Every structure is written in C-alpha cells, then in structure tokens.
C-alpha cells in the first residue's frame, strides 16, 4: 500500500473536529480517521461522541465534552488539546425565520453558536500555538449568506457570511505561520438539523429537486471536501470558500 499515490492522506496528522456527535461533524471525524489521522472529537453529548468514536477504525484519540458557547468549556477544551495539524469547526445551528421576525435576541442566539464560538476557538488555537506550523483549519460555513439568499434564511445566512469573512482575514494573518484557513460552503445537507419540522418533509423533497445534481448533500459529500482542505493536496490553498452544493448556486 505504501506505493499507492495518495495526496489526500491524513497519516501522521492530529485533527480536531467540533460538532462531532452528529451530521457533518460526525461524518468528517470518521472520514479523517479512515484517512489515517488521529482525531480529537468534541461535542455536547458524551454518549453521542462515543458513538462517533465507535465508528472509527481505531476510535478517537480523545473525546472532549464541551458546549463551545460556554467560555469555560471552550478554555478547558483548548487547554486539553494536543498539538494539532488541523481543525474542522463544524458545530453550528440553523433556523428558518422571516427577517421581520429576526429580533436582536434571535440574531444573538444564532451568532453565539455559528460565529462567536468558532471564531473564539480559532483565535485561541492560533494564539496559544496549539496549531502546528503548516496546519490547516476548515470552517463549515454555508452557501446561505454568500452565494444564496433564500427567504427565511437571513438570520442563519448572516451568521455564516460573517464566519466566512473572518476565515479570509485569518487566512491572511495566519499565513505568517503557514497556517491555512479555508471554509466549505455547503448547500442543503441531509442532517438532523433540517428535519426539525419547520419545513415539512414534502417541502424538503420538493426543494431537493431544485438542485441540478438532483438531491440534497450527504454529510460524506462535505467530509470529502474537508479531507482535501486538511491534506497536503491543498497545501497552496488558503482563504478559499469551497462551494459544495450539487450545483444549486450556479
């Protein structure tokens, strides 16, 4: 196997994945492990984190239960980190709300989870030199707010657009240590987040038909993009928002 050409290998890399107990985070954590990485996983629920670890060939390197919106949890998480070659910040939330109902309270709730938590984690990982030189950070943003502006997605999209903006500034500044920072902007991905009932299953099925490739994304579709961005295959790529959306935003 040593002779197989594989520029996407993650062997000898230690990678942190947040939001690893479900959806895109879970798929990414498992995919990184299958590509040979030592994976540190974090999420809010110990039982579900264990389930993610169980899906890995040799289990997770470590598991940290943390709510990233809680400053103490976040500090404890950073302190517990081994040196990292990569991080994929997947933890996030969504809401479907017409803008006229987007009160400050609703925006704050969405920005706490989707913007302030990952931005603070990214800041501390860099400032405390947890990220090795040449490391790679992947933020999970969205086509919402940057490439697509569907009614009802304003509060969510604004939080992801803000995250995408910080990604680009960080890419410029963190290049000083050759740390790369990129994002993935997925279209609708079939995760528990979209099945909370505000949009009915029938409406979701109808909406999926509007994607040129004929379906919503799967968590693995996004995980595969993260593998590329974490691997040395993308070593000359930084500040990029990789759209993975089945052609929706064309």
């Amino acid at each position, binding site marked *: 196997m040593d002779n197989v050409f594989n520029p996407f290998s993650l062997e000898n890399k230690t990678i942190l994945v947040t939001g690893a107990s479900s959806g895109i985070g879970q798929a990414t954590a498992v995919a990184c492990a299958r590509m040979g990485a030592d994976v540190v996983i974090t999420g809010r629920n110990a039982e579900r984190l264990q389930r993610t670890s169980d899906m890995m060939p040799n289990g997770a390197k470590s598991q940290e239960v943390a709510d990233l919106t809680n400053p103490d949890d976040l500090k404890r998480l950073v302190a517990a980190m081994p040196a990292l070659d990569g991080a994929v910040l997947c933890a996030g939330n969504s809401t479907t709300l017409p803008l006229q*109902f987007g009160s400050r309270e609703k925006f704050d709730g969405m920005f706490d989870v989707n913007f302030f938590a990952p931005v603070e984690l990214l800041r501390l990982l860099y400032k405390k030199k947890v990220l090795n030189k040449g490391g790679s950070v992947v933020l999970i943003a969205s086509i919402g707010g940057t490439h697509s502006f569907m009614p009802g997605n304003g509060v969510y999209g604004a939080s992801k657009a803000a995250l995408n903006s910080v990604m680009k500034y960080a890419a410029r500044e963190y290049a000083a240590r050759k740390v790369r920072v990129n994002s993935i902007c997925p279209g609708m991905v079939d995760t528990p987040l979209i099945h909370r009932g505000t949009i009915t299953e029938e409406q979701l099925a109808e909406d999926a038909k509007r994607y040129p490739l004929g379906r919503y994304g799967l968590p693995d579709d996004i995980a595969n993009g993260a593998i590329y961005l974490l691997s040395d295959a993308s070593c000359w790529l930084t500040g990029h928002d990789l759209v993975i959306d089945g052609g929706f935003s064309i």
Partner: protein
Amino acid sequence: MNNGYIITMNIQDFIDNFASQFDDTDETVFTAETKFKQLDEWSSLTALSIIAMVDDEYDVIIKGNDIINSETIQDLFNVVEKQVH
C-alpha cells in the same frame, strides 16, 4: 391576552395576528372559517411567518405539518391553544 402567567387565547386576536402576515389580502376576508391556503397570496414564506408569529405571540412552536394539516384558521387556533402554557 397575557394576564401574567397564563396566556388565554382569543380567536379574534389570533385572526388579527394571522391577518397581519398578509400584505395584499383585505382584513375583512379573515374569519375563523377562512380556508387560508386557498388565498391567492398564500406562499411558503407566509407559512414561515405564521410559524414565527405563533412563536412570538403565544410562545408555542408549531411545525410545517401543523399548517399543512389545518384547513381553516380555527383549525390552527385549536392546535396552538392545546400547546399554550
């Protein structure tokens, strides 16, 4: 009407709140028996606004299916009233 701890639901207030989510349909059209999904102006965005209005005004989270399964405004009122606390 919010009298402190218990929200007592009133059908006319509910109809008024419901009607507020429309821009081009005359207020007089809206009664408890209005089959709201048959209105020309009805759209998926209106549905989202109704869900958000119910959350704002009654602190009740309804789902898309509650709207699908309600024919009249009274039907939806009944769904919300059951969950009001």
